[in-house]
């Protein structure tokens, strides 16, 4: 009698737990697809950004590694070839006509050719690239500190973000772009890189110019950069979330973790 009851109880428990877990799983999927729940989840992004910015000294450097630490293979992710006719032309001319224009909310909008950028003082850093997928690769980057360009163009007081426009488009023709807080443009390790591991950038890694923003994840590191626009808000730009992956996939704009 007691045994039977225990059996029943066990059956009941098993059934209830099984059903509950199925309902819970389906519930999580429904929540993920609702409009209100992800907006609650995304509150954590603001909290993370606030706390991380508060506890991280503005000029704290990302760890720099030695030559021996460089990854034998540095994987290239995202778009690995812009593939447009325009880009093919630049490639044929060895990027002689490639310019990076810095404008928007600045005193002196300025354009630099690739050659002009290479003449500016450069910085070389061996740093770790952390992909949102979970892998890391170490590479040696050489480029011009973005802070130097900022001093040249002189941002206006209402400029808060830098938006990076890129030459690459996805399969559907949607162009890549990214954005970062203006303060991060002045970080000593934030550079417009033109060399990886002592060689000019190759196409998969963003030739001829890409951003290195060492304190955030890989998808913030815009490749094939053509224009940097300083803005007060990016809510009116494209999808309004400040970047291709943010608009398209729902990745966080603040990619510090």
């Amino acid at each position, binding site marked *: 009698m007691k045994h039977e*009851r225990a059996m029943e109880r066990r059956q009941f428990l098993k059934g209830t737990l099984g059903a509950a877990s199925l309902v819970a799983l389906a519930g999580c999927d429904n929540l*993920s697809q609702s409009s209100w729940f992800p907006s609650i989840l995304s509150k954590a*992004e603001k909290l993370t950004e606030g706390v991380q910015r508060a506890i991280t000294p503005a000029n*704290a*450097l990302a760890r720099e590694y030695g030559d021996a630490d460089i*990854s034998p293979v540095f994987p290239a992710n995202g778009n690995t070839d812009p593939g447009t006719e325009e880009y093919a032309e630049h490639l044929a001319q060895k990027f002689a006509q490639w310019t990076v224009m810095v404008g928007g909310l600045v005193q002196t909008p300025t354009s630099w050719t690739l050659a002009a950028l290479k003449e500016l003082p450069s910085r070389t850093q061996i740093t770790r690239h952390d992909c949102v997928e979970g892998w890391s*690769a170490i590479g040696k980057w050489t480029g011009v500190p973005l802070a130097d360009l900022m001093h040249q163009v002189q941002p206006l007081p209402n400029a808060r973000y830098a938006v990076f426009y890129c030459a690459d488009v996805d399969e559907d023709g949607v162009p890549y772009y990214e954005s970062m807080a203006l303060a991060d443009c002045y970080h000593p390790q934030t550079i417009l890189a033109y060399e990886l591991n002592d060689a000019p950038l190759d196409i998969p890694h963003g030739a001829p110019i890409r951003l290195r923003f060492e304190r955030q994840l890989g998808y913030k590191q815009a490749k094939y950069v053509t224009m940097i626009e300083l803005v007060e808000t990016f809510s009116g730009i494209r999808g309004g979330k400040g970047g291709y*992956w943010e608009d398209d996939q729902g990745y966080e704009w603040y990619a510090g*973790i």
Partner: protein
Amino acid sequence: MASLVHEGTGTDQGLEGEQVPELVTMSKPLPLKEPLVERVYRHRLPVRISHWLNVPFLIILIMSGLQIFNAHPALYWGDRSDRDQPLVSIRPVQTESGEMRGITTIFGHKFDTTGVLGYSDGKRRAFPAWATIPSAKVLAMGRQWHLFFAWALVINGLFFLTYAFISRHVARDLAPTGMDLRGIGKAIKDHLVLRHPKGEEAKRYNVLQKLAYVVILFVVAPLIVLTGLAMSPTIDTAFPWLLTIFGGRQAARTIHFIACFTFVGFIVVHVVEVILTGFFNNIRSMVTGWFTVKHEHEGANHEA
């Protein structure tokens, strides 16, 4: 024993479906053969709240964590991930006949885990749909769940630890005493044959239970939080020693994963023990605070 407050001795009807006669335990020894039932206030409210919040928090964190893992289903040591040298990887592999198999590789040893790991329900994915949040492969959404509930767990954990120290729950109930530790051999033997403490002994945590809680609270939980933070490139600039103590970002990711499965193991053992030591009594005590203890008759203790 502040948190195991006696309500005086009362009676409890219908415990485990048994008939328990009304007993008055004020004075004289009772000649009855039925066990005496005492109600004990075992878990105070903050502990109960914190405990039940942890249930969804941990489940969500584990399952959304597996979603994130699926985006790059391999673990490494050191700072970088050389893809030809993973410690562990879970991959879909096509055989010569064109069939898909899930292959899990651990330190170079390959295991066919088709159906669960690497390839399940016709999909190429490391952990199966039933183990991840969301069930479909959506890294961005998995990260949103994970990074929200990571805060929830940390805040709940800090709330619990603050309470547990101030109320002396840690010192009185969780910290093993010297006598506890000397009895560890017997405790292990008792656990192996599923013999659990009764009577007075059931009112307090046994030594293995204490050690399990202490290790989870003060070793595994801080480890999983710190290794999680060590994966943040921003935190690594603020606290570079995190990379040093864990042996690199990829090593931290591996330790994070091991700590996760330590939690899974703890949860399994915890739930099994809850079921084996009186499921409804245990659940009630974590819901209402009140736990019942059956006493053998004094003097009859040594019979068995």
